[in-house]
């Protein structure tokens, strides 16, 4: 019992310490993007553009695969359940609202936690171990400005875009199953998908994707900057980046959804 409590306590301290560093990096990011450019420290936009290709363009295949196949799988289950009530014509409605509001942002966020968050932690962590971060600081170059800002800007810009694409892929996966396999009418599928949708569904999805992007980007960077030791430290940071991101994403998802429901 004592060991369990000690473990919980240690876990709490670890999370608390991480949240402090999360807040510090976010504050530093805001300084270097909002205030510092007016003091003669421009944002490195060419580096942000390069990172955007890596975060956005190169992640499209995996986002497509995950959302498309989850959409297809979900369509089978939703159609089967709605069929019990003779309402399988509304499969499109469930897929549309479900993906726009929830599954698109959530699935894409979790994919990006693994694809981008781990990559950020590994890259920055390796630079920390290789003294590149110290070399930047010794050269009067701020590592947040040089490394974190372009990468986080890329994540914040690209993840919502990729989320939109993932949502479409997921709905299309459902379409392939409903129309191509289950023989539903294509027009009915699309009409029912659009009918119940409101602006709030798209807005909620975009808000979530932006929050998830912040979580993935900042978590990956913080874990990278916190690396100590050699390869083992980098490995631990990479794992922690993914685990922390996923946990915070699902907690934030519940919080935003609940706020919307009761708001």
């Amino acid at each position, binding site marked *: 019992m004592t060991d369990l409590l000690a473990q919980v306590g240690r876990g709490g301290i670890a999370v608390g310490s991480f949240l402090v560093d999360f807040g510090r990096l976010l504050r530093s990011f805001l300084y270097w993007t909002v205030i510092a450019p007016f003091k003669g420290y421009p944002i490195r936009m060419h580096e942000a553009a390069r990172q955007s290709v890596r975060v956005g363009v190169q992640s499209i295949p995996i986002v497509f695969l995950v959302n498309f196949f989850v959409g297809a799988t979900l369509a089978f289950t939703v159609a089967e359940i709605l069929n019990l009530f003779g309402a399988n014509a509304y499969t499109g409605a469930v897929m549309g609202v479900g993906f726009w509001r929830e599954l698109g942002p959530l699935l894409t966020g979790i994919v990006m936690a693994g694809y981008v968050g781990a990559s950020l932690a590994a890259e920055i962590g*390796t*630079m920390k171990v*290789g*003294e*590149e971060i*110290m*070399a*930047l*600081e*010794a*050269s*009067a*170059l*701020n590592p947040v400005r040089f490394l974190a800002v372009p990468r986080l800007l890329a994540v914040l810009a690209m993840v919502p875009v990729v989320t939109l694409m993932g949502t479409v892929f997921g709905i299309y996966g459902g379409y392939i199953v409903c129309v191509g396999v289950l023989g539903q009418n294509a027009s009915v599928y699309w009409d029912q998908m659009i009918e119940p949708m409101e602006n709030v569904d798209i807005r909620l999805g975009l808000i979530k994707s932006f929050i998830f992007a912040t979580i993935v980007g900042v978590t990956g960077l913080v874990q990278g900057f916190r690396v100590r030791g050699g390869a083992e430290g980098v490995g631990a940071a990479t794992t922690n980046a993914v685990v922390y991101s996923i946990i915070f994403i699902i907690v934030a998802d519940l919080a935003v959804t609940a706020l919307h429901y009761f708001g």
Partner: protein
Amino acid sequence: MGAIDDTTIDATSARGEIVIDCRGVKKSYGDREILHGIDLVVRKGETLVIMGGSGHGKSTLLRLMIGAERADAGEVRLFGQDMSVSDEQTLYPIKKRFGVLFQSSALYGSMTVGENISLPLEEHTDLDRKIIDIIVKLKLEQVGLRKCENLMPSELSGGMRKRVGLARAIALDPEIIFYDEPGAGLDPVVLSQIDQLIIGLSDKLGVASIVVTHEMSSAFRIADRMVLLYNGRIIADGTPEEMRRNSAVDAFVNGRSDGGEIGARDGAGFVEDLLGGK
């Protein structure tokens, strides 16, 4: 270089302004006190070698000097500026006046050789792109490299990486250059070439050089002055000739444990520790 007598030292001291001033510097990591009160002065144009075994505080002292870490007590001043201030913007003008060659070279892996060297010039000067490109070529020439501006760090040998790291360290024509184990991982031939670069830069540019190393042959070759760190304290300080006559230094150089302070082991209690108290 290196065989400087007392007269020359006195004359140098009289001429050279103090560029680094450490007073009562202490540093701990957790419960382990690494530095126990270091007093050290470095003058302009001087090549100081900091020797010592692994774990005795050499690299820690260097990190305090370059502002990478803050001392727990005492003062570290470069060009009169206290390096422990928390506002990093205050330290930027000081950091532009020194360069660092790290043990691992610490080249930016996502940039070419040319981009590594030009980065400080782009960020800290208003020079035209063409001028920067010329300076990059000049710096590479100074360290004995040519036509490798477009190579990536991963394509370089260990010796080439050290040279590029050095070219980057001198990009802004610094007044101090810090070398953290410049010979680490290099064969004796390449090490000797790096030593010649260090001597040449000191002679031609008049920079102060602080070299952290435990490569003895290299240390005696390049030093104007040497200090020996042991358990976080300076136990010897002098010219290479003075150091050769110092018994503690002699014991360290020759890897002996009979030098009094260095390497002395307390055998009492070892058998009990080994056998778990039985």
